[in-house]
């Protein structure tokens, strides 16, 4: 069952069409990743789901009901630009947000989340004294303080160090395990690949990808070879059937032209160098993203 559904949604700002004829269905209890280049329409889509922006055309349904002018209840939202009252104390700001959201057991919830996100000893400090990472975690707690049914996060991992990103990821998975539906936008393709049940990509306001990671990768087939040789990128010179090469130094990632025989590539490379690794695989989400967002981008080596 879809907990959120967008039907033919269009939003324009003056002459710019931020989102065009967007259809999207978010099943309940899943983690849905929104990816796309900067300015592609992710935040506008999220703001429309949150009823902060109103679509010019189409309709948005949450829990089967079309949006009205009232706010969404039991929906947690973490905006892209974080904002909290800097002069308030950590505990007070969570109490304020919790009261606004009619949170039951507010004290125990605040204590639970502050401990879980390693902020308990900061409860009496003013928000302005926290580091950027701490503020982001505090903002996350404010988003989920009422244990919402739907959690919408705009780039929750940006600016977090790996330890804090891991803490946040665990918290999100716990909430999903307890029944929450999670939507988050991200530029971290690795995180999206690992966490999301579904991935939606928007580019120039238009949906270009929507589905599970497997279904997306299936569209592109096994056209990628990860290669490691003793001679590096030079062994690839003159080999036919290689469309693009992404050189990581130790490893080269090759995108093959349609119909190219991987065994032929293997034989050609073996003639020139000793092979340490040869893996035929599907393209990564990062690769798919770049193929869509920057199809004309120059690679390290163009065969």
């Amino acid at each position, binding site marked *: 069952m879809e907990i959120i559904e967008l039907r033919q949604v269009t939003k324009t700002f003056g002459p710019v069409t931020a989102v065009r004829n967007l259809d999207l269905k978010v099943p309940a209890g899943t983690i849905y990743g929104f990816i796309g280049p900067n300015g592609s329409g992710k935040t506008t889509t999220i703001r429309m789901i949150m009823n902060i922006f109103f679509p010019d055309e189409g309709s948005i349904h949450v829990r089967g009901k079309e949006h009205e002018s009232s706010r969404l209840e039991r929906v947690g939202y973490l905006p892209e630009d974080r*904002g909290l009252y800097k002069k308030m104390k950590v505990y007070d700001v969570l109490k304020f947000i919790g009261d*606004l959201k009619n949170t039951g057991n507010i004290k125990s919830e605040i204590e639970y989340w502050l401990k879980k996100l390693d902020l308990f000893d900061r409860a009496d400090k003013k928000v302005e004294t926290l580091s950027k990472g701490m503020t982001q975690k505090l903002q996350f707690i404010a988003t989920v303080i009422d244990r919402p049914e739907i959690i919408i996060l705009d780039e929750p991992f940006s600016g977090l160090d790996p330890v804090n990103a891991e803490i946040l990821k665990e918290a999100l998975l716990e909430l999903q395990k307890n029944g929450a539906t999670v939507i988050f936008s991200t530029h971290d393709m690795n995180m999206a690949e690992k966490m999301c049940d579904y991935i939606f990509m928007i580019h120039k306001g238009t949906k270009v990808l929507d589905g599970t990671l497997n279904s997306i990768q299936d569209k592109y087939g096994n056209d990628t070879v990860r290669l490691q040789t003793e001679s590096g990128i030079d062994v690839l010179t003159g080999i036919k059937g290689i469309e693009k090469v992404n050189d990581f130094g130790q490893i080269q990632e090759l995108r093959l032209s349609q119909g190219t025989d991987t065994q032929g590539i293997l034989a050609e490379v073996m003639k020139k160098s000793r092979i340490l690794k040869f893996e035929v695989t599907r393209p990564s989400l990062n690769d798919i993203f770049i193929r869509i967002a920057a199809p004309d981008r120059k690679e390290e080596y163009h065969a």
Partner: protein
Amino acid sequence: MHKIFVIALREYKAAVKTKSFIISLILLPVLMGGSLAVSIITEDNVDTDDKKYVIIDHSGLFSEAIQQSVIQHNESEIFKKGTQEKIKPAYFVEFVNPDKSDSFKQKLELSERVKSKELNGFFEIGSSVLHPDNDPGNAFVRYYSESGFLDESRNWFANPINNHMRKLRLEEMHLSADSTKDLFNWTNIEDLGLLKVDEASGNIQDAEKSNPIQSLLIPYILVMLMFMLGIMGSTPLITAVMEEKMEKIAEVLLATVTPAQFMAGKVLGSTCVSLTTATIYIAAGIITASQLGYANMIPYNLVVWFFIYLIFFLIMMGSLFTALGAACNDNKDAQNVSFPAMMPMILPLLVLMPVLKNPIGGLATWLSLFPPFTPMLMITRMATPVSIPVWQPIAGLLGVFLFTLFAVWAGSRIFRTGILMQGQKPTMSNLFKYVFRG
């Protein structure tokens, strides 16, 4: 409503728990009573430096009389009896003969002496001042100085000159001063209120002498209090809302509350802060007046009207300033819109004196029925001893109520659009667009 109260409570606590609230609580009466206090303090602090004047007397009649008056003044008026503290300046006069060949040159030389602080000023008495009809062009007494308008000496010298002229005229008519004593008796008209019936006893109460405190001070205090509460309570909303918008706090809150709830919470919070301040001042004023024996002058029915008008005034102004704050992007925007938005508070002050002089005149009546001005001007009119028609405060209240509804509606329309709009200037055309097209 719950969400509005939560936001209002945060606003209230954030304002009341600060040091600036306490400071402003003290500062407000200091500012209001500042000019009064300065005038009281400076009343005793008069200029006691001796003054030197030159008199050019074309008539030749006054030297002796003025000299005698000056001597009497210097001997008996400049020192406080008992303490011998100098409380007035001593006067010294020098008579010079008029230069008939070049009077301008003579006056220019005297002017130079005044500029060099050798003299404080000089007088010129015309030749036909005693009998003006003979030669009206020369029937004058002139005082030349750097600031004659504010100089009290000018008034002092008018007395010996006019008294001596009166004496000379009586002598010419062969009349003695004693026989004409009543001729110069001037009776002032007493300023009284109206007679009324005592509600408890049913007896007629005689009219009381008109009290300047009742006539001027109470209306002045009430209107200034309303003005200051508006300035201190409503105007900070522009920068507060603008900061919430620019620091993205608004977007966080708008995920949970509607723009209308957000705005209503902020306006309610600031209104409660101002009402707290007003209650403290009014209570302190009533207690102080009672202690000083002015309890009978406290207009309790007016206090009720004051609070009713104040509430609408604060909501009206709060909605306006909150909406404008939402439409601003930086401090420059906020500065540009602040002054025009303060006009409903400033303009009533500009017409305060005409309204106080004639509270039932056409200007006072119609301006006080113009809703943005009604709270300040109607309370001013009601606070004067003059009775205004009973329907007018009620009609004014109805107008203010309707206008406040409009202000809240228009404000929330601007707020809804402006709070997430970046880069758009708060021009009149944009604001109208937000109100009527969203």
